[in-house]
């Protein structure tokens, strides 16, 4: 693809350093304030989807008074259409461990955990071997930072940070009330930094290259690059590291099959962008954010089926504790079926849109709150497909 118009980046999967764990060793010698300042300067935002400024998160946890603190790497990657964390963990695990250890130093944590979804259990032997090596190296650097892998057991909601803590503590993965937030009351009620796999890697690369060079990539609101998981109707599905802040039409030009009618940005809980809006859509925190999932649909696809599939997913993967999400998801799915079958008039879709709006503002956690994203963007943009 020599004529590519999109800037390919080689940060995440690029070389770690010339000697093993050098970035880590160098960073561990630096002062915490300096590390935080570099992070702040870099403008790094979390890569798990919500886009919270990483430096601020670390600072809050660093300032939280407690003898016990934790660093957790969120490798639950369950969002439909996302598979980049698996790739990162299998190709550059050392960067992930290093990022976690740097975080541990900055916030004063004694231990790190990786919460790995059970679907990725096959990575366990290799990761365990790598971890042994890591522990050896970091021991030599005079910083004791054990990292342990905790396995999930098949529950998308456990990617939500507070549900993840519940799961790690041996409970049902039901999200907690917030506030309090993880930075003061996280795992075992202790101050905790939880970041996405990719976020930790970005930290390492910022430490290696410096914030200035990192900032050269992306836009003001979306610094750096992003690993994209590209799937659906594309001749070249796979994992691509691209600059943030690109317009969607350029993306489609490159990855589409020439007949792309819609792109789902950010997975089932993200937004569906129809063809006519490709040009005006920016991929990044200023536009449509994404944890990396980009699913392309061409004109042979029924958007009704796509939405139905997403709603099925949410209905099963909702933890079920709160009313708007547990019952709302059932109503939305059965509602579109009823409209399609003619049991309900087309106008019922408007009721459902209002319901999804209520779910967005009343659900207890991000899952229930984001069902409306795909629901309203698909229903509004493809109303005919919902009815006929």
């Amino acid at each position: 693809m020599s004529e590519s118009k999109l800037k390919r980046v080689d940060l995440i999967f690029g070389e770690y350093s010339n000697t093993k764990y050098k970035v880590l060793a160098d960073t561990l010698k630096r002062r915490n304030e300096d590390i935080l300042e570099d992070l702040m300067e870099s403008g790094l935002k979390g890569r798990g989807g919500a886009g919270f400024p990483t430096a601020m998160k670390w600072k809050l946890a660093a300032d939280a008074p407690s003898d016990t603190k934790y660093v957790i790497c969120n490798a639950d990657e369950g969002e439909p259409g996302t598979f980049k964390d698996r790739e990162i963990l299998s190709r550059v695990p050392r960067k992930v461990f290093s990022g976690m250890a740097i975080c541990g130093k900055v916030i004063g944590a004694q231990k790190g955990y990786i919460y790995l979804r059970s679907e990725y259990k096959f990575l366990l032997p290799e990761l365990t071997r790598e971890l042994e090596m890591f522990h050896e190296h970091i021991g030599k650097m005079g910083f004791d930072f054990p990292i342990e892998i905790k396995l999930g057991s098949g529950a998308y909601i456990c990617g939500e940070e507070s549900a993840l803590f519940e799961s790690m503590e041996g409970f049902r993965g039901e999200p907690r009330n917030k506030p309090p937030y993880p930075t003061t009351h996280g795992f075992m009620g202790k101050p905790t930094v939880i970041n996405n796999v990719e976020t930790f890697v970005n930290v390492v690369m910022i430490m290696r290259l410096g914030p200035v060079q990192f900032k050269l990539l992306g836009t003001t609101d979306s610094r750096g690059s992003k690993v994209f998981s590209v799937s659906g109707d594309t001749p070249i599905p796979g994992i691509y590291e691209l600059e943030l802040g690109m317009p969607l039409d350029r993306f489609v030009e490159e990855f589409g099959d020439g007949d792309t009618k819609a792109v789902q940005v950010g997975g089932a809980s993200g937004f569906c962008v129809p063809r006519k809006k490709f040009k005006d859509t920016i991929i990044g925190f200023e536009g449509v954010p994404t944890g990396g999932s980009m699913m392309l649909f061409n004109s042979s696809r029924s958007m009704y089926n796509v939405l139905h599939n997403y709603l099925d997913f949410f209905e099963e993967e909702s933890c079920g504790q709160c009313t708007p999400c547990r019952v709302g998801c059932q109503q939305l799915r059965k509602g579109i079926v009823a409209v399609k079958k003619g049991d309900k008039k087309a106008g019922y879709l408007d009721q459902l849109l209002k319901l999804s709006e209520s779910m967005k503002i009343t659900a207890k956690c991000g899952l229930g709150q984001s069902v409306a994203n795909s629901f309203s963007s698909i229903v509004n943009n493809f109303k005919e497909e919902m009815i006929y």
Partner: protein
Amino acid sequence: MTNEHLIRDLVKKHGRSRVALLPILQGVVDANNFISDSDMVEIAKELDLSAAQVFGTATFYSFLSTEPLGKYVIRVCKTITCDMHGKKQIVQTIEEMLKVKVGETTPNKKFSLLETNCLGWCHEGPAMLINEKPFTGLTPERVHDIISEYISKS
């Protein structure tokens, strides 16, 4: 049948606090593919929980079955991209080969066929897991070969 020894070993390894619950349940599933009611009672005793608490926790997680499953648990991804790229034919092929429907276990207790949500192989869909091993880029032919191989395994 209870796995008293297995559970005792798991407790020795993971401890008796609540954080040990999931690793212990996972350990039982690793050994048996499911957690029986007597196993749950045993775990509850060891961890000083009520049996209902163990049951409630186990049933939250898709991979912690409380119903007996076969030796090989096949989980075919049903989420959108795998669905678009021919999941249905994959499931059909397996159903025909094993003579079971989705959700069922073969009479010889060797295979269970399940569907599951996104496995994280969307770019190589359709995908499936057999126990923990992923298989991707499936076609009816490929899946036929894979399953045949498992059938011939002792």
